[in-house]
């Protein structure tokens, strides 16, 4: 019962954010739609029997199936996409591995940075406290 209450509250908060997003789309969509693209790759969606643009290879089999060809800075990437095919072929395609590595590198880098800052912050706080404590404990009159 307690779990359901918490679930309801969490779903309520999520619903509020979604409604705010819908309101943003309705009343202020121009604030986001125009303007420079945020590193958005060019995508070419191929249909069954579609033709690849010149200079691109379809990867396995040589025929372009229904799917997406993403053209990034490093050239095209074939992303398989069929209704009942989860595209595991593209997942285990070594050419697509840099995308995962890129994400992992960013995550690890940010985690490392935050951990270093946290360690330094705690260390400085500890030494400051030690100094405060020493100043309180030390009494020149006590020396004999």
């Amino acid at each position, binding site marked *: 019962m307690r779990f359901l209450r918490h679930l309801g509250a*969490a779903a309520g908060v999520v619903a509020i954010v979604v409604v705010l997003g819908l309101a943003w789309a309705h009343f202020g969509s121009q604030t986001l739609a125009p303007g420079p693209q*945020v590193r958005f790759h060019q995508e070419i969606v191929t249909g069954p029997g579609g033709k690849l643009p010149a200079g691109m290879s379809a990867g396995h089999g040589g025929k372009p199936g229904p*799917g997406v060809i993403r053209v990034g800075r490093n050239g095209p990437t074939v*992303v398989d996409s069929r209704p009942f095919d*989860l595209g595991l072929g593209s997942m285990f395609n070594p050419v697509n591995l840099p995308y*995962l590595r890129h994400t992992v590198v*960013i*995550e690890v880098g940010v*985690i490392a940075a935050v951990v270093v800052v946290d360690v330094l912050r705690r260390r400085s706080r500890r030494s400051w406290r030690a100094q405060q404590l020493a100043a309180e404990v030390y009494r020149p009159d006590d020396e004999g």
Partner: protein
Amino acid sequence: MLYDRADPASRIGRRRRVAARTRLDFWFDAVLLLGYTLAYSYGFTGIAIHEWLGIGLGLALLLHLTLHWDWVIRETGKLLRPRGHDKLIWAVNLALLVGMTLCVASGIVISRVALPEVGINSLGGPFWERLHVLSAEVTLGLVPVHVALRWRWIVRVGRRLLPRRSGRGREPRATELQGPGPGEQG
């Protein structure tokens, strides 16, 4: 407190229960991080996995928020107290909640595989596509911060749950395992 402080049996029961909860938190959050990493790597997974994983991640995040709802209530009530660390965590978590919700919601709206699969055509437009990309990039910055702000808890529980084979790691103690959850320590 739901248990009787004077009753040792109930205290041990609570220890076991909290330890199980800590284990659940640790592994569930690890799976969430892995799922998020895969879902963000769109070029790696392909569009179908990206979309289904994103929908699953949305549900899992709702569960994650539910599991830590006590923390949300407690820390929201403490916002006026003069202590910085938890306020930072609270702000990061709120931003992450907004970013992740918008990311999943916009992803569902612009879906090209998952939504048509259930008979709904894509409702998206340039606004939703931009919102999806933008919120995804924001979450990529916030997820590691969210994880790293609890690095001590992760290391402490990880050491207990993933003991070294060399035997250098000592056996976990119930009192250590129960510890504060990821959203409970200061």
